[in-house]
């Protein structure tokens, strides 16, 4: 069943896109990540222009995170103050990111920038998660824990102006979550990823937030920033394809529900191992795409 995308300006197989959305939705429901890191590269491999893929994936992330946010809100697993600070950072990040995006777009470097960032970030996070889950499953020896390690990262603790975040029960400078949100905002604009798989570890290891509020807070942040990114993209790059996003969403929101059900039946460490492998595979595929001679040497840009 072919359907014409008015912004991408080409027709695609609607069933394929819905299935892709569903698959990514299942993963996002299982792992609590937005799933943008899979949607964007897969759409690009399918032949959607990178800009449209990135912009429309951001829209899908909003939809995929809604149900997660609702669940965590009900359980009280959201630190609204922390989330608010991060959202402010995220909004600035997405605006600055959009400026950078335009700059790279006009110099023709955006494809390479997207590819390189993907390889670096996914590769790094994937390796971290892989070793972590292998340790947890007992396949790897755990190094002797450092003595006297403080709850907060030393850099974070040295920042001035500390605030109390009661729901998280921590006392840190708002500059740290602000910077974290800023980074996530830039990534969302650039890569069409929510940044969940960066936010969650950073909130645990850098800010020392309790696991109880981490996922919910990061989901709220992702929801707000991906919504803002959709706005930023539709105002600056005009690359959001509502038909493409709608197709992805239909599959994605249903998949997310099934994914959430699946999670309860699997061991969390196995789940993390699986996610690490998927992330590394995507990173590898993107890396190969950068290093191998591309199918198209020439590309056309309209002036």
């Amino acid at each position, binding site marked *: 069943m072919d359907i*014409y995308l008015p912004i991408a*300006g080409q027709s695609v197989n609607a069933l394929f896109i819905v299935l892709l959305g569903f698959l990514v939705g299942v993963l996002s429901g299982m792992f609590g990540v937005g799933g943008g890191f899979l949607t964007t590269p897969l759409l690009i491999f399918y032949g959607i222009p990178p800009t449209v893929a990135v912009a429309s994936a951001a829209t899908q992330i909003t939809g995929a995170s809604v*149900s997660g946010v609702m669940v965590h809100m009900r359980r009280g697993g959201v630190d609204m103050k922390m989330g608010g600070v991060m959202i402010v950072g995220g909004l600035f990040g997405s605006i600055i990111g959009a400026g950078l995006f335009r700059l790279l777009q006009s110099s023709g470097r955006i494809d390479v920038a997207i590819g390189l960032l993907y390889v670096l970030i996914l590769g790094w996070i994937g390796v971290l998660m892989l070793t972590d889950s292998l340790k947890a499953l007992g396949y790897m020896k755990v190094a002797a824990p450092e003595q006297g390690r403080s709850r907060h990262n030393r850099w974070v603790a040295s920042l001035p102006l500390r605030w109390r975040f009661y729901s998280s029960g921590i006392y840190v400078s708002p500059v740290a979550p602000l910077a974290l949100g800023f980074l996530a905002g830039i990534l969302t604009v650039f890569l069409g990823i929510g940044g969940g798989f960066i936010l969650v570890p950073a909130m645990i290891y850098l800010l020392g937030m309790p696991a109880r509020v981490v996922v919910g807070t990061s989901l709220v942040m992702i929801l707000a920033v991906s*919504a803002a990114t959709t706005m930023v993209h539709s105002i600056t790059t005009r690359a959001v394809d509502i038909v493409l996003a709608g197709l992805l969403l239909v599959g994605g929101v249903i998949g997310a529900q099934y994914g959430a059900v699946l999670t309860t039946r699997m061991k969390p460490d196995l789940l993390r191992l699986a996610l690490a492998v998927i992330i590394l595979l995507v990173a590898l595929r993107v890396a190969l795409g950068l290093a191998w001679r591309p199918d*198209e040497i*020439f590309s056309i840009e*309209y002036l």
Partner: protein
Amino acid sequence: MNRRLAAILLALLAPMMIAADKPVLVPDISARQVQIRYSFTGAQLLLFGAVVYPGGRPPDRQVDIAVVLRGPVQPILVREKQKVAGIWMNADSDRFRSAPSFYAVASSRPISELLDERTAAIYELGLHNLQLSPGGGALPEKERRFEAGLLDLRSRHGLYSENPHGVEINGGVLYRAVITIPSQVPVGTYTAETFLIDRNKVIAAATRDIQINKSGFERYVALAARRNRVLYGLTCVLLSLGLGWAAAAVFRRRF
């Protein structure tokens, strides 16, 4: 409808044509408008018509016909990827000020057999005779490389095509050619040109316009994304929030 129109035209014009000593082309197209809708996967256009000879008698030798369908001209920037430090990235670029967004030529015999190079270049017949107006300053070698890259890329996307045996001539009078338009054609006013070629000369030419437009929902979306950017963005956000909420609501009841 179109055919009847052509017949009436023929009847009306016939006396004038007999007086003239040159043949006249009466071209038509199967569709004056192509609408891009949700299910648009490309279209096939039939370009057909008749040649009216003075005296109503076709000549004994074979005359040839070439038809060209041409999309609106766009200024474009072509980028070339090169391997830099092990990574393929855009390294070089060249500007073309007047590249047609779509170009298809069909002829009854290969163009090179019909016309000499200079004449073919004047009428821009054949892919290699397109006047792309490359941006000045570049070396001719580089310009050739980029031109070849552009032609190759668009040929493989179906935007540029050349069919040396695409025109069928019946009884030396009626001709027809089928041209395929892929789904990713840009919108705008297209021109269909027909050339009657005899002994290395274009002896008659005629032009018809075709409108290719997005219609209905597709047109509305494309316009909204361009004109009401904020509203469009808000709609996208609300759509995703609504769908996400709906799925959560439906599934909460089931599980």
